[in-house]
């Protein structure tokens, strides 16, 4: 590409859809590009101001979502409120899987109607006021006064995801469609608008993601632009440029600019009112770029693609630019002539400018692609590599007067000679063509040419290596330890398959020789019936082979009704406190149990699963929280216990002394301190003198030093690892609400580093960049924390190394920790530090050449 430059990233719709499908599939709009709810603070120098949550002011960057206690009144066959809740939780969890986003969503429990809350959050409601044609609505709330733009964004004060109270006409909760609708609506609640690259934020017309792989690259980029982590900046690059009309030179507003590779997913962005654009979140590599106008508004869409138009501060919208020819850079409809744009990490490739020719309307739009799968037809289907396939496409502009539009051709981006000429397919009022074979795995992008225009449908199909998974039978069994288990039999199942019981994942304990899986089902309430599906990493799900048949059900045994008690049941606004939850007929499991207090004003800082019936938590209550009673919810797998009015927020006392969680290690700043280590606890309203203050850790006294805002103390000998209760009593004898300190095992010790090629690494045999390094580490596991539930990180020269893998734990306590030394590592001796949860190792000097 000519004329582009690289700078720092920082500086920088047949005849309308044949009613054939319109009647059957009917959705709102289609789309291509990640996009946000956007304001501009000036009609000059357009700098988009998105609407998003203010993670900087949200504890733990965690946004709670709450499910209304006033649930659905009617369900699809086989559904219950619990099964719907499990899918809601699973859909929210999808947005937690983005490593380049700091945003985390957490189930805040069941919320009673009218619960007064101050903090931001997401409310999932079931509403009788939603008309029968609407499946779900996602909305965001902001302060109405937009006279200023704090910090370059508009904070969301509350979001809402609404479903109908009558879910009987919806797809069942276990269906891929219901799940993806929830993921999509959660996307709206987080600040994402519709997209046009077949991602989950596309409307269902062009949405090609699946329950097994619900997010597209475009979704990941879109959420990361709003809530980017440090990893976003260090692993991706961006492209900027401007789209102008060839006849006037004026910028095009809301043109969709798409970066794409032949066998990769598309990432895109919409242009600003002056035609400028920035596509962020691109993995390094070479991309083709194309630009297309938004598709015409479909029935029910107030704007093209149902995009809420960008607004100025007076809420005046910037109109959508007129239609133009879709072209690939540098202005061609011939994809073999398209030029490549290079993207590098942490940099912006700038001045990638397009000039487009206006036209009255796009020749083709809203294309949907169908293939067959056994006897079942699938939209945006998987295609078995090296196998033939027959395809039908429908959409606007493909058919004219019951004939294929004159001159229409179809192609797959980057593929030649593997497909037949298209023909009119009367039964579907669409276009039929065949593919002889496909080789490389991954997405394929459809290109339709007609009337001197092209239409690109990213990820129209996906080439896969094996058939979709299926679940044929569920057989109750016992695992090797005698625990209740289930043998899942079917096809295309492997250790990499995820088995879901409704919205909760089972734990695969063994792959049997004949290919079945032995799984530990998630905990559930007695007599619960879960529908079991299989999800494979290639994006295929067992629903692909089921058609409209339900997945096989699994019935849980009867059991006594679980319940919980909480102590203390009252916590004052503006304070932190330890909370203990005792379960009856429960089976709390570390990593699966979630506690919600039904209010965004009560934040769970950390929880410890002490036993199957006991939980300890540190909670913080918002200083502005109103006096109210809330519902306590404890969920573990599919098991859910909800107790209304069991927790109370009492009024704030401005002079209340309170210890702040977490208590941190003075040496590391992390929320875990070993015995003998120095702990620091911030204290609000701390007396000016520490004299008379009595602090104990697990009832063992610890001398304290005050600096006026925090107390420092040494963790006494004899305190066990794990959660320890820290109590503080004032000189006047006032007992301050205790909080929990995580007492860690001693720090792990890196003893040596090895490579496969040269053995031990030292100054005479330095490690090579890009090489796999094996660290020998002692004391990695602390005997208290499960290694499987821990996060091990290795940093070299202060830079986290991705792909850390703990290989084994030998009987002597030594572990092998492997990582690939980054190719960006400087030469010379580099400090290596390993972190597991809150424990930080010694510094090991690694020679690098």
């Amino acid at each position, binding site marked *: 590409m000519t004329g582009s430059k690289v700078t720092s990233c920082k500086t920088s719709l*047949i*005849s*309308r859809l*044949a*009613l*054939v*499908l319109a*009647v*059957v599939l*009917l*959705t709102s709009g289609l789309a291509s590009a990640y996009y946000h*709810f956007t304001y501009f603070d000036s009609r000059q120098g357009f700098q988009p101001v998105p*609407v998003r949550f203010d993670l900087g002011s949200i504890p733990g960057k965690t946004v709670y979502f709450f499910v209304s206690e006033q649930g659905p009144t009617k369900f699809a066959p086989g559904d219950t409120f619990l099964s719907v809740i499990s899918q809601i939780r699973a859909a929210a969890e999808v947005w937690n899987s983005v490593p380049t986003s700091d945003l985390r969503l957490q189930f805040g429990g069941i919320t009673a109607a009218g619960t007064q809350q101050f903090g931001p959050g997401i*409310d999932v*409601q079931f509403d*009788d*006021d939603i*008309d*029968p*044609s*609407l*499946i779900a*609505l*996602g*909305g*965001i*709330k*902001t*302060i*109405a006064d*937009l006279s200023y733009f704090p910090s370059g964004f508009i904070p969301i004060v*509350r979001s*809402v995801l609404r479903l109908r109270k009558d879910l009987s*006409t*919806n*797809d069942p909760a276990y269906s891929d*469609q219901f799940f993806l*609708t929830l993921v999509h*609506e959660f996307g*709206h609640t987080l600040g994402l*608008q519709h997209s046009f690259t077949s991602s989950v934020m596309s409307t269902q017309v062009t949405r090609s993601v699946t329950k097994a792989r619900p997010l597209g690259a475009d979704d990941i980029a879109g959420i990361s632009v709003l809530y980017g982590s440090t990893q976003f900046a260090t692993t991706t690059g961006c492209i900027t440029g401007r789209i102008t009309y060839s006849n006037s030179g004026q910028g095009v507003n809301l043109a969709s600019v798409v970066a794409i590779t032949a066998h990769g997913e598309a990432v895109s962005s919409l242009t600003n009112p002056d035609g400028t654009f920035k596509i962020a979140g691109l993995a390094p590599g070479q991309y083709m770029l194309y630009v297309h106008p938004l598709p015409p508004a*479909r*029935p*029910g869409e*107030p704007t093209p693609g*149902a995009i809420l138009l960008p607004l100025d501060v007076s809420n005046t919208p910037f109109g959508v630019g007129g239609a133009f020819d879709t072209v690939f850079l540098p202005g061609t409809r011939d994809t073999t002539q398209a030029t490549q744009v290079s993207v590098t990490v942490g940099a912006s490739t700038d001045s990638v400018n397009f000039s487009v020719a206006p036209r009255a309307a796009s020749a083709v739009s809203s294309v949907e692609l*169908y*293939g*067959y799968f056994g*006897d*079942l*037809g*699938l939209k945006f289907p998987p295609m078995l590599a090296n196998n*033939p396939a*027959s395809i039908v496409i429908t959409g*606007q502009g493909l058919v004219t007067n019951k004939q294929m539009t004159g001159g229409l051709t179809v192609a797959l981006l980057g593929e030649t000679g593997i497909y037949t000429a298209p023909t009119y397919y009367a*039964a*579907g009022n669409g276009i039929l063509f*065949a593919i*002889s074979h496909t080789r490389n795995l991954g997405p394929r992008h459809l290109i339709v040419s007609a009337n001197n225009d092209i239409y690109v449908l990213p990820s129209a199909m996906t080439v896969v290596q094996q058939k979709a998974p299926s679940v044929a039978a569920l057989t109750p069994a016992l695992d090797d330890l005698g625990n209740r288990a289930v043998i899942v039999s079917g096809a295309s199942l492997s250790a990499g398959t995820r088995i879901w019981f409704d919205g909760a994942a089972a734990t695969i304990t063994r792959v049997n020789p004949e290919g079945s899986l032995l799984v530990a089902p998630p905990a559930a309430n007695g007599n619960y019936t879960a529908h079991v599906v299989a999800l494979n990493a290639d994006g295929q799900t067992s629903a692909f082979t089921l058609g409209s048949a339900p997945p096989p059900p699994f019935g849980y045994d009867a059991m006594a009704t679980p319940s919980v008690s909480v102590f203390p049941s009252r916590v004052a606004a503006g304070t932190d406190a330890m909370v203990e939850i005792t379960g009856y007929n429960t089976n709390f499991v570390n990593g699966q149990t979630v506690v919600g207090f039904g209010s965004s004003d009560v934040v769970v800082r950390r929880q410890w699963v002490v036993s199957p019936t006991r939980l300890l938590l540190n909670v913080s209550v918002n200083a502005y929280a109103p006096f109210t009673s809330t519902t306590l919810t404890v969920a573990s797998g599919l098991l859910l216990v909800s107790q209304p009015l069991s927790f109370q927020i009492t009024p704030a006392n401005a002079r209340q002394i309170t210890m702040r969680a977490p208590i941190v290690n003075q040496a590391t700043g992390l929320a875990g301190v070993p015995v003998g280590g120095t702990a620091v606890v911030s204290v609000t309203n701390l007396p000016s003198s520490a004299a008379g203050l009595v602090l104990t850790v697990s009832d063992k006294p610890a001398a304290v030093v005050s600096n006026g805002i925090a107390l420092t103390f040494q963790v006494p000998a004899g305190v066990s690892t794990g959660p320890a209760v820290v109590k503080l009593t004032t000189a006047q004898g006032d007992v301050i609400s205790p909080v929990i300190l995580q007492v860690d095992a001693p720090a792990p010790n890196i003893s040596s580093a090895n490579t496969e090629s040269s053995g031990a690494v030292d100054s005479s045999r330095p490690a090579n960049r890009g090489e796999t390094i094996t660290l020998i580490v002692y004391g990695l596991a602390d005997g208290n924390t499960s290694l499987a539930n821990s996060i091990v990180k290795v940093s070299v020269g202060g830079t986290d190394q991705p792909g850390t893998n703990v290989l084994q734990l030998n009987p002597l306590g030594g572990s092998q920790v492997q990582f690939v030394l980054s190719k960006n590592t400087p030469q010379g001796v580099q400090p290596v530090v390993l972190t597991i949860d809150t424990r930080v190792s010694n510094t090991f000097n690694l020679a690098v050449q």
Partner: protein
Amino acid sequence: MRWYSAIFAIAVILSTRSAPASTVQLLSNDDLIARSTSIVRGKILSESGTLRRSTIYTNYRLQVLEVMKGAADAQIDVAVPGGVAQGIREIVSGAPKLQTGTEYVLFLWTSPSGLTQILGLSQGLFLSVQQTNGTMLAVRPGGSAATLVDIKTGKTSSDSGSQMSVGDIRKLVNALPASPGASK
């Protein structure tokens, strides 16, 4: 190449797909007429934001000029999700904005709790346009001419749904089967 299989499979697609699972079901004109609790032609007089439970709606006060289905007072309120109330703005993707002073034909749905809304977000919203011969048309804002093909019969219709004559709406309403307690 298994063309027969392909055709069979596609036929399956077109005949067995279940009800849509998306944010909005697309409603045909027949659907709009059948599912609406009332159909009116009217002029927007004013708009105001209101908080109903925890949802913000924009209430449009409508001067009713003609009732084609159901019953309606001389002035009615039509709620559209999203808007501004009590200092808070709620943005709802896909919600339409109506213009004060403009005449519309509205396919309305009244919830069990009494909230009257446009059916299918923008789908039940049509501009009221008088032709030179005096005929009143309901024209979908931003709609484009298209041919609809019925999946079951294969019949096409030149009326894409983007516009209908008010007279035809009346005829279709009158052709609806009577249901107990319902008024046409």
